[in-house]
Every structure is written in C-alpha cells, then in structure tokens.
C-alpha cells in the first residue's frame, strides 16, 4: 500500500521534491509514528529540524494514527506564517 506524500518549506528542500508516492508494507509502516521513523531514516536532515509534524488528509495527526491506502500525508516543518 502507499500514500501521497507532500513536502513543504525546508522539508521540500531536504527531500528535494514537493510530492512523491510513498509505498510501504504495513509491517514496516503502519502508523504516523512509524512513518516519521522511516522518513528520518531516509532523510536524516529532517531530525535536525526544531520539530516536524505530520498532517493526514489535511489534519494534524498524532503518532498513533494508522495510515490508510491513498492518504494524503504532508510533512509540516515548523510553521512561520504571519
């Protein structure tokens, strides 16, 4: 299964793209927390950010939220609007 990943701000610079398909088996990634671990493994520079949050289908998601196939998952580095 897989999700549509979106990257913004510095996360886009780190990953190098603003959007990608991210495929995984539910064995390796099931929850938002698992996804974060995998992202930091793939892109170690993400761990240097002050924080980063994950939004699933446009809502901030807790680490225990379980991902579903085709979810829109965004990496949200520290926001700085205004």
């Amino acid at each position: 299964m897989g999700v549509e990943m979106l990257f913004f701000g510095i996360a886009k610079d780190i990953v190098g793209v603003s959007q990608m398909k991210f495929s995984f088996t539910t064995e390796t990634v099931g929850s938002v927390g698992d996804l974060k671990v995998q992202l930091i493994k793939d892109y170690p520079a993400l761990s240097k950010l002050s924080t980063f949050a994950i939004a699933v289908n446009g809502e901030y998601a807790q680490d225990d939220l379980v991902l579903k196939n085709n979810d829109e998952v965004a990496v949200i580095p520290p926001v700085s609007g205004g």
Partner: protein
Amino acid sequence: MKKTVAIVDDLDTKTVYEELSDRSSGGICVFFGAVREFTDNEEVTALEFEAYKSMALKEMDKIADMAIAKWDLNKVVIKHAVGKKKVEEPVVIVGASSAHRSACFEACRFLIDTLKETVPIWKKEIFKNKSVWVSAHP
C-alpha cells in the same frame, strides 16, 4: 456572522473596513503583518511565503470559529498572502468586528497569535547572499 478566510497572491489593504463593517458593530480591530527591512540587523530583501493551501484554509477557518465561539463577534477576516513579498508589503490581514471594542481587540490578537502557531504556511527570509526558512532549526 460572516467569516472571510483566504490565501491570495496579493492582499488588498483597502477593502478590510467594508469586509468587517456591520450594522451591529461599533468596533473593528485589524492587524496587518508586513515585511520588515531588518531581521537581527541583517537586511532582508524579500520574504517568500509558501502554503499547504487546502489545509491552511481549513486551519484558518477553525481559528475563525474558535474566535466566534469565544467572543461576541459580527464578522471575522483572516487572509494570508503567498509568494514573494517586498519590504513594506502586507503579508497577513486579520480582523474582527463587534458591538463593543474589547471583544474585537482580544479576538484580533487571538487570530494572529493562533495563525502563527498552527496554520501551515512557511516564510523564507531572503537576504543578499542567503535565504533561510524561518524557525526551521533550533
């Protein structure tokens, strides 16, 4: 009760009074955020804003609803600009109208404070020889 929530390329500062004015409102409070020339004594040539637009609009809508639940308001406006903005250009406009002035002042401060905390919009400061995503690193 009417709320206006928007993400636009260019903010119009001239229309905010008519957007917030209301027959029941004696007070209208507005906050404009603008591009400042200096950050920590370094000259900024521009700011560049990027938004996760669909989610940002939802979060702005939630903030408007929270303000409406908390204060007795007649209208609320939350608008943010995206793209490259030069010094003195507006980047955000928030405002509220109410019968008496306390409510609109408190709500307006809440709108901008909360927007800065939760709305997925990112600001890059562009200096002469570098550019920096604000608040990204500790």
